[in-house]
């Protein structure tokens, strides 16, 4: 008895069958937003870390303000602020674009700090050796420092990437048809928790490969140290 109540509440076969295509479509939306956020967020973070390494005080001041601001504020607050605030200044972005923009900026802030820490952790002797052979600042950064810095950033960056892509669920508060949104809408429509289970399984199906990919990257990018 217990058993069938459990099945009926969380795994009702008819509901699964009926709404599986909706959840699948929502998965695609989540994947799309997540991939775009990861690409722009990491690119932004890397770009800002490179700019920061030129150590131009006023620019670095602005970078630090941006980074600290976006790391301090809860992403939900930013999503709501941008979604409901931008129209007031005459900018109307679709909810999906707002989600992408906000999450990219948040990931960019964290990624900048991670890349910057990576750049700082490369020993000074590496700069000196490269510069002593006549390589310029940008060449040294590109060929000697960043390849080493980026290897060190793979584990924290993977964690941060997983964390930020989970935040695509915040799209549910502004109507992006991603997994959580579709699952909760369907759940209230059918009065059964099964769609939420389906949503959870969809997240698992999405993120297990990401986690495995992160592990693979870590081993690939590790090199034997003396």
């Amino acid at each position, binding site marked *: 008895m217990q058993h069938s109540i459990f099945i009926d509440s969380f795994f009702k076969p008819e509901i699964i069958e009926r709404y599986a295509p909706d959840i699948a479509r929502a998965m695609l939306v989540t994947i799309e937003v997540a991939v775009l956020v990861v690409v722009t967020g990491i690119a932004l973070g890397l770009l800002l870390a490179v700019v920061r390494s030129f150590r131009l005080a006023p620019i670095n001041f602005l970078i630090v303000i941006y980074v600290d601001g976006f790391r301090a504020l809860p992403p939900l607050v930013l999503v709501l602020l941008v979604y409901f605030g931008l129209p007031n200044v005459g900018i109307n972005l679709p909810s999906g674009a707002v989600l992408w923009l906000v999450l990219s900026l948040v990931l960019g802030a964290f990624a900048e700090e991670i890349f910057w820490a990576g750049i700082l952790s490369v020993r000074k*002797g590496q700069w000196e050796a490269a510069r002593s052979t006549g390589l310029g600042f940008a060449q040294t950064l590109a060929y000697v420092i960043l390849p080493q810095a980026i290897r060190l950033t793979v584990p924290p960056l993977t964690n941060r990437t997983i964390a930020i892509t989970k935040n695509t669920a915040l799209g549910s508060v502004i109507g992006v048809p991603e997994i959580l949104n579709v699952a909760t809408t369907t759940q209230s429509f059918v009065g059964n928790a099964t769609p939420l289970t389906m949503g959870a399984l969809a997240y698992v199906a999405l993120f297990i490969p990401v986690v495995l990919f992160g592990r693979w990257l870590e081993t690939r990018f590790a090199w034997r140290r003396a």
Partner: protein
Amino acid sequence: MAAAAILDVRALRKSFGTHDVLRGIDLAVAPQELVFMIGPSGSGKSTFLRCLNRLEEPTGGSIVVDGVDMMAPKTNLNAMRRRIGMVFQSFNLYPHMSALGNVTLALRKVLRMDASAADAAGLAALTRVGLADKARSHPAELSGGQQQRVAIARAIALEPKIMLFDEPTSALDPELRGSVLAVMRDLRASGMTMVVVSHEMRFAREAADRVVFLEEGAIVEQGPPGLIFGPEAGARTRAFVSEIGR
């Protein structure tokens, strides 16, 4: 000699804040000369070498390398730096590149050689240090002595006018030092101009034309090894030499 000098340093000063680390150094190094520098820890030996290619910005004085004023604003520093080979105590090989990659990076990116020309030149440099067979090895797969020889190959591949060595064997176990010193002897025999900061007294006796004793940022005494390491040297020099000789 000054006119023909490869390196001509005059009144070189360097301060870190209020700390005067180099207090007016004059040193001219003739072509093919090997100048050996000794001095207590903190006397400014590393700072001196690092000022020569302006890894460290001198506070004052002049540095002329192969006729080019290193302090002149119009001097192309990167072009000059590749003419001044530098070897560090801690090797500073690029850990993410093979030995050959370490040697060819500047050949490709500074001299703009194509890949096959750079590889050929890089292999030739590795051959000179006896490590052609390690071209594909990464630094972590090499012994300290081998790493330092790769670092030397990285510098000589650029065909420098002068080589600066900052305690090239100090980070090595005694049994690994010989191979590095042998490479340095070969370099000297091939006519390379060298400034060597080191505690390797035997190498200095055999290979140095001149020994310079630096203390508290100033040259106290200089001369042929026989003089500096001998009984006629000044009291401070003798005290220092006997200390490191122990």
